[in-house]
């Protein structure tokens, strides 16, 4: 009579998040600020990406107590990150009943060959992608939501733009292919044929795609929404800025009104300094987070 945790309800929660902003928070106070600013969900984690970058060392799943405290502080959905391939961390997060698990390259990967088999889980997963093949491989493994990766913790939007343009460009090009060519495209993208065929027919991913990694300003949010993102993740961009309360609300407003420059302008006024940023091009290959995952 009742079917719980079907793919439709997993992907359906991502539908409900659309047009919204998901904010990284490290404690109850930040979670409450995010909720009061209009975040559609929060990502509970011990260190935002810019701090993970600065501190180095192995970045793991957050302390369950910390995640629980955030679940108690807000009524909006709470997400949490597991390391790539670390299905035991994901099992712990499922026990905590987080609303979404982010199998995230921001944490140090636990398995260099395999991502988590996400199908057996009742909690839905969101995964990062830099191109269409990567997105479809994650969906093939059971991901119910995709985020373009960008380069987390930099405040530099260039990688987010590259990944969004790549994914959407590859989707567009599939549309012009005949059936025989679609099989070849599936091989080239190293993606499941059925999913490639579905994308070619519909002209979009079969799940919701947000943008992450480098959003620091209302105009950044507007840019990625205009490039086809269906919502945004903001990590370090809010709570590493001069005025998190104002900036959080401003990014929410700019995400809703992304196509109206007058509203993005109004949202951009009087926010103080953005987060300290790093130009992604200046990073060493080994420092890039977006290269993690395959």
């Amino acid at each position, binding site marked *: 009579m*009742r079917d719980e945790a*079907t793919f439709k*309800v*997993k992907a359906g*929660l991502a539908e409900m*998040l*659309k*047009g919204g902003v998901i904010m990284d928070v490290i404690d109850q106070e930040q979670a409450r600020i995010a909720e009061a600013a*209009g975040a559609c969900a929060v990502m509970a984690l011990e260190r935002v990406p810019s701090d993970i970058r600065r501190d180095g060392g192995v970045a793991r799943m957050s302390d369950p107590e910390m995640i629980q405290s955030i679940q108690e502080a807000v009524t909006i959905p709470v997400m949490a990150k597991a390391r790539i391939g670390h299905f035991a961390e994901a099992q712990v997060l499922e026990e905590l009943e987080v609303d979404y698990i982010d199998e995230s390259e921001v944490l140090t990967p636990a398995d260099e060959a395999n991502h988590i088999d996400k199908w057996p889980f009742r909690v839905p997963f969101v995964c990062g992608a830099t191109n269409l093949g990567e997105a479809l491989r994650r969906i093939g493994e059971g991901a119910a939501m995709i985020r373009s990766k960008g380069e987390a913790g930099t405040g530099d939007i260039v990688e987010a733009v590259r990944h969004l343009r790549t994914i959407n460009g590859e989707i567009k090009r599939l549309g012009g292919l005949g059936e025989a060519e679609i099989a070849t495209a599936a091989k080239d993208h190293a993606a499941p044929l059925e999913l490639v065929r579905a994308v070619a027919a519909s002209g979009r991913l079969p799940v919701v795609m947000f943008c992450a990694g480098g959003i620091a300003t209302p105009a950044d949010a507007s840019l990625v929404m205009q490039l086809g993102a269906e919502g945004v993740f903001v990590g370090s961009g809010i709570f590493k800025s001069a005025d998190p309360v104002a900036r959080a609300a401003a990014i929410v407003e700019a995400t809703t009104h992304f196509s109206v420059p007058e509203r993005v302008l109004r949202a951009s006024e009087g926010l103080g300094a953005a987060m300290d940023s790093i130009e992604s091009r200046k990073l060493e290959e080994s420092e890039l987070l977006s290269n993690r995952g395959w």
Partner: protein
Amino acid sequence: MSGLPSPGATGEQTTVGVLALQGDFEAHGAVLARLGAIVREVRVPADLEGLDGLVIPGGESTTITLGIEREQLGEPLKAFHASGKPIFGTCAGLIMLDSEHLGIIDLRAERNAFGRQVRSFEAPVELGLPGGPVAAVFIRAPWIADHGPDVEILAEVDGHGVAAREGQVLVVAFHPELSGDDRLHALFLQSVRDARLAAA
């Protein structure tokens, strides 16, 4: 309404708004367009001008509440309802319309009443529509905790109301826009066309 052209036999002229502050407004728009309505996304009060009906979609009720405040949409939405135009709220939309938010329908919603995301579910819900139960998708769904005498409860799950009607307002706790079953939207659209004809 006298300034508008009269609707054709199939009602192609009917324009329905979908509140588009946040949530799955595109999914609603796609269903309404499939059923022949002209669809307009509503983000500011001026977007309500000339609409025949309005859908308040699923999404995060906190986010949408704050959006309604920021855009000063509360009074215009109440006036829209007072003018006799039909409104359809799904999930967060049900919450927005309840007595603790816009006060457009005389009921109180309990948020996330079925639990966290792991308790989200699909189930057939009997609404007495031709064709049998509707396929319903419940996502961190609310239920109707209590309601006034003029509210008709149309369906229950676990003994709690999940669909209701009062006058021109229809609310459901689930997501007909995600199920591929268009009958509730068709029912709503019929009420929009009827209201339009009555006002003409």
